[in-house]
């Protein structure tokens, strides 16, 4: 990114030629800077939030006898920087962050970054599978509904997508678990792979990819099997959301003059549909998909709780309820960061798909 972004960072007014050459680069730089500022804001929010907590980290960490000795308490506070004024504590915290130090979890007594490295891939695998399913099904349903506007399929899909966004995720997870695992026994139980199997060698942390890389096909099929039910439960909301948005986006494009012109020109229906209708409709859809990913990350907390999926959601829940501050802050940072990256990717895709964004 640095060579292309250089013109706008030199401080000199960019020449007319360079301005013409890299509108996308300048657009990217602006986006990245905004994202970095937001990331700084996220650290501030997590820091403030965790300082609002009424619980006292000293009493949570030291034993009864140590607590009775003021010297030990003072020493512990000094060791952890707690005797300094809050702004200074924040700067210390930021300084640690730059070196990848997220503090130590009070529950696991391990660095938070190590904990997160264990839990984040599981959630990414789950959320990734869910967003993939949602994009494919949501866009397909939405296009279909738009093409059959005001006829039976449209009405049925409208009701179904509204049901999709209305179901309480935690309840659906429970119902799915009860019916498909407990009663019908067509899906495997909780966790990421069958009990007794060992995890594939760590490459990406995603069991499906790692097992495929290692050629362990039994682990691979087990990982896929375990992924299906929670991913589908998680995806239902976003499928509903994307169906509704795709439908209206496609309807909007269908009414455009250039679509009528393409039809009048005698272009085959398939070409009109994919090149003239679906591509421009993708622009708003991608924005919504980015937002949908955020709601997926929210949903994982609830779905992971039911399916005992060892992901960030479970970790966040455990840390939040036990007031494990460094862990909570770490989760907030990582999840907020992932969300920022997704939004950045969405903005960039936006620019790639719609030339008007780049030029303006």
């Amino acid at each position, binding site marked *: 990114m640095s060579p292309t972004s250089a013109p706008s960072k030199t401080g000199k007014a960019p020449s007319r030629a360079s301005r013409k050459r890299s509108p996308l680069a300048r657009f990217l730089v602006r986006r990245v800077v905004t994202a970095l500022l*937001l990331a700084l*804001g*996220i650290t501030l*929010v997590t820091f403030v*939030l*965790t300082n*609002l*907590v*009424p619980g006292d980290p000293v009493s949570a960490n030291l034993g009864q006898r140590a607590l009775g000795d003021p010297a030990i308490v003072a020493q512990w506070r000094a060791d952890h920087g707690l005797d300094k004024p809050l702004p200074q504590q924040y700067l210390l915290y930021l300084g640690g962050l730059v070196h990848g130090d997220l503090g130590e979890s009070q529950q696991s007594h391990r660095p938070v970054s190590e904990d997160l490295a264990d839990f984040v891939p599981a959630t990414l695998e789950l959320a990734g599978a869910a967003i993939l399913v949602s994009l494919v099904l949501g866009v397909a349903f939405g296009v279909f509904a738009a093409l059959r506007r*005001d006829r039976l399929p449209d009405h049925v899909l*409208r*009701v179904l997508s*509204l*049901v999709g*966004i*209305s*179901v*309480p*995720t*935690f*309840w*659906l997870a*429970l*119902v799915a678990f*009860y019916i498909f695992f*407990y009663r019908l026994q067509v899906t495997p139980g909780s966790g990421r792979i069958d009990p007794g199997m060992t995890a594939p060698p760590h490459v990406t942390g995603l069991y499906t990819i790692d097992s495929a890389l290692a050629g362990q096909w039994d682990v691979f099929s087990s990982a896929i099997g375990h992924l299906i039910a929670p991913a589908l439960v998680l995806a239902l909301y976003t499928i509903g959301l994307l169906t509704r948005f795709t439908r209206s986006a496609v309807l909007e494009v269908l009414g455009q003059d250039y679509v009528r012109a393409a039809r009048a020109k005698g272009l085959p229906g398939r070409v009109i549909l994919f090149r003239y209708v679906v591509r421009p409709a993708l622009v708003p859809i991608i924005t919504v998909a980015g937002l949908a990913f*955020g*709601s997926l*990350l*929210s*949903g994982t*907390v*609830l779905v992971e*709780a*039911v399916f005992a999926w060892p992901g960030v*959601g479970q970790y*966040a*829940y455990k840390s*939040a*309820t036990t*007031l494990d501050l460094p862990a*909570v802050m770490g*989760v*907030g940072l990582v*999840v*907020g960061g992932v*969300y*920022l990256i997704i939004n950045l990717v969405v903005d960039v895709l936006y620019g790639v798909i719609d030339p008007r964004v780049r030029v303006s």
Partner: protein
Amino acid sequence: MKRRAGLRGSLTGGSLTARLPEAWRQPLAVAGGVVAVAWIVVALAAPLLAPHDPLAQDLPRLAPPGSGHWFGTDQLGRDVLSRVMYGARVSIPLTLLLVVLSVLIGGLLGAVAGYFGKWADETIMRLADLVFAFPTVILAMVVAAALGASLTNAVLAVLVVAWPAYARVTRGLVLGVRGREFVVSGRLLGFSAWRSLRVDVLPNVTGPVLVLATLDIGTALLLLSGLSFLGLGAKPPSPEWGAMVASGVEVFDSWWVATFPGLAILTVVLAFNFLGDTLRDALDPRTARAIKERAL
């Protein structure tokens, strides 16, 4: 005031009141309306309708649905039907309160941001961006945990994540009308900023915000019951739906304990989403025409 009402109508493209009657005849809106009203009646009349005391533990434990207890009983021998009915008194008023508060707070902040611009705009909207940067459940969970687990704190936590949506929408709408002639001429006539906001700007903003609020009732209820499901909301004896589903996890075999409160949440959320979806169509001039054509 009359003249202004006309102006408002021309701005949103046909008046809101004229379009509502057709919207109400849509089957989805009818279904949503009936279910929503039914739940409100249940909430109001729960003491009359419920066959048992929702807290009394005097029935056989974990009895499957049958006569005497149509929705079965839970692990403490309480009647699930009565608890679901009383649950409406917990969840529905809190959800409505939550949405009203987010509309007021978010709407006011958004209007201030859009109308005054400059640093007010920057401060408020960057704050909103920050909230948007977190997934709602995780942020609400952290806030709820930080404040301590209780239903009031859960409401506050949801409020923290809910207001920015209204701020964004209101700001955009206010920006759209701020430069209009009738607003400027009001200011030239000597309206104060607040009077101008209230009399000239606000009426042009209410429609879309109303739609958002209706659709948001469902989201708010899902989030609130989700927090309770995680144990960060209602406390045990309270018949809150999310907490009831959570208690059903412990007695997995007795499916009725979790199923019925879940269905209650689903039907309430669905009802308001049906209403909100129809409202949105009615307020969108393009789809509104389609509704009118079919209604004739």
